[in-house]
């Protein structure tokens, strides 16, 4: 097998297992106090400032960041445990998700001392939230085709253009904007840079785009002569593409790529346990297949967390986790329909039917966000040397 496809078998240490119990106890306490309602796709749709701050109090937001910036200096593996437990419980973690997963590590790797000191402590307190400013109307899969540009005028940059599909921008504080700082040439990936943009700055306007579910989630964000200082450039000018791509392994291999519909699976099993006709061979078989897939995906994703902890390349296997994980998320929905005769309904008295509706209505996003399945598969093909 290709070396890049060999994943180490990683097992959780005893202390990690103990830590997992601590996280579970915290979640159980909150569930008992009914401080949140478990929901599907909670890392995208469950925006709760209160919850993010509660997690931060435990030291679980930005926990891998060094102590001097407000973090805990903990390992990626511990962070893995926290994210996994939160998603399995369907906790509302969307507010800080991007800052914790992506922006923090980006700034730690490429940011200036000023940027680290300015932004990281707020992230770790669960108070400062970031969004991802990549896609534009004509730059979806063909991301390098972006037209938003920053032009230097005396000692400031003027940002003009727009971003689209920006998750949470209407509720968040900053955006990492990928834009052109040099004229587009044949080499589309060059001349792109990353800036930190204050979403409340003059010249920024945000228009929420209603989802097919009726919820407000993603946005169109317009920049009109937004003034940026040099201090807001992340890393090197013109290196934005490379810097952004480096984070994709984190973005694509995490448990959010296979646990978006997990609360439905848990509820499905609860319902099956209560039903006399549940102990059919068919139900056993289907649940068994889901469990085998889930365990495999967890092992795979955990191994990648281990690789990332050791600073090893993992973008190819990360794409595999996302693809397999997204398929699993959808299989849960279809299996639920096969095993329990019911109809999805957002207002049902039954939790099971509500979770089914939420999972179904959010399912089109799974295989699009963070890179479409088609794009992921072509990355895998390239990785195989095809």
């Amino acid at each position, binding site marked *: 097998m290709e070396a890049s496809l060999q994943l180490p078998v990683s097992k959780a240490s005893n202390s990690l297992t103990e830590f997992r119990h601590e996280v579970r106890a915290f979640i159980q306490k909150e569930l008992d106090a009914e401080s949140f309602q478990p929901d599907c796709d909670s890392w995208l749709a469950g925006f709760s400032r209160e919850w993010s701050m509660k997690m931060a109090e435990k030291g679980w937001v930005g926990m891998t960041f060094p102590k001097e910036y407000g973090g805990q200096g903990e390992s990626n593996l511990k962070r893995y445990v926290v994210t996994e437990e939160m998603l399995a419980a369907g906790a509302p973690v969307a507010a800080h998700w991007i800052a914790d997963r992506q922006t923090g590590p980006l700034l730690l790797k490429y940011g200036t001392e000023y940027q680290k000191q300015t932004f990281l402590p707020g992230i770790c307190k669960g108070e400062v939230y970031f969004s991802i400013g990549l896609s534009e109307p*004509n730059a979806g899969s063909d991301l390098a085709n972006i037209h938003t540009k920053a032009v230097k005028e005396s000692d400031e940059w003027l940002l003009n253009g727009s971003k689209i599909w920006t998750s949470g921008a209407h509720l968040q504080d900053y955006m990492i904007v990928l834009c052109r700082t040099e004229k587009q040439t044949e080499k589309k990936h060059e001349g792109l840079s990353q800036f930190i943009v204050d979403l409340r700055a003059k010249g920024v306007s945000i228009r929420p785009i209603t989802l*097919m579910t*009726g919820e407000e989630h993603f946005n169109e964000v317009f920049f009109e002569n937004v003034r940026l200082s040099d201090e807001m450039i992340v890393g090197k000018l013109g290196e934005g593409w490379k810097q952004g791509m480096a984070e994709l392994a984190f973005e694509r291999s995490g448990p959010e790529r296979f646990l978006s519909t997990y609360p439905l699976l848990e509820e499905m099993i609860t319902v099956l346990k209560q039903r006399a006709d549940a102990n059919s061979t068919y139900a056993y078989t289907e649940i068994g297949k889901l469990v085998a897939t889930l365990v495999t995906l967890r092992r795979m994703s955990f191994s990648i967390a281990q690789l990332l902890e050791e600073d090893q390349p993992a973008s190819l296997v990360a794409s595999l986790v996302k693809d397999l994980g997204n398929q699993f998320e959808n299989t849960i929905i279809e299996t639920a329909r096969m095993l329990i*005769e019911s109809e999805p309904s957002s207002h049902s008295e039954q939790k099971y039917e509500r979770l089914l509706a939420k999972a179904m209505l959010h399912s089109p996003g799974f295989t699009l966000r963070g890179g479409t399945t088609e794009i992921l598969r072509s990355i895998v093909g390239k990785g195989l040397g095809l």
Partner: protein
Amino acid sequence: MITIERMLVDTTEKLFKQTCTKELINDAENGTFPKTFWNELDSMGITTIGVPEDCNGSGFTKLDAFAVLKIAGSFAAPIPLAESIIANWQYVELGLPLPNTKQTISMINEDVDLQQHSETWIINGTFNRVPFTQWADDLVSPVKTPTGKWYLLKIPLNLTTTVPDSNIAGESRNKVICKNTSLNSSQVIAMTPEHAAQFIHETLLGRTMMMAGALQQILTMSIHHAKERQQFGRPIGKFQAIKQQLAVLTGLATSANVIADSAATATVDNIQFQNEVKIAKTYVSQSISKAVPIAHQIHAAIGFTHEHPLHQYTRRLWSWRDEYGSEAFWAKQIGENVISSSKSLWKQL
């Protein structure tokens, strides 16, 4: 060859195209009954297709009615058209006059109790997930008594309590509760088990035709999008990955339409009709779990917005596939019948 009335189909299609717009559907989902649209359909006689003209219907055949329901599905029509047409058939077949009120129907009623006291009947029980009750005057439902007798009930909805709910397409699917509801003998009509079975299967086929129509529509939209949307300097339809997916979607939509049309023409006898309808509902419902994700994948982010009309079809497909029994429910019956038969599968087909 069995033919459907081309003129009827064409004029109906034209009317839907002009009137059943994205905005009309949104408004309906927000609770506004599309009155003008409905009245127009009514005045064209669309609500009484399949009812002979000498019974005050507009004539044509049931086959024509099913063709019209496919059109309704292909425009995501948010109206109780299938319900009204099918209710009207029952009235006429049981020798009752056509009502000039709006009808809805139910076939999910496990525990409805009927008590006869000379000229009046007392009804107790619950009807689940009844379509569009707020826009209808009567609920029409076949009910079986513990002694195995079937009756068709025509329950004025103002005598009932409703608990609102809806499917994920924003179409109301309410619970209707009868508590000591008193009906007169013209509202409780004895029917044969065969007639009740016919009602149930016509209802199933109505949904199936609508799904087939909506599947055609998401295929059309996906082909259009694949030709229009450009990435990497060319239409996304030029990429192999998209071509392959569109080919699969085309296969699903086409085959679903074949079996739906075939069921609609299976009029040789009751048994053949019922078997074919079950197969069609199973196959079409089943195809949706593959077809809808493809349509969404091709449209990508734009298809995930409320502004784009794709979701008006996909949310309906997700809802309708589970209504009146999902493919799991009907496939189990088909499988059970096949396995318990003494004949080989081939001889059962």
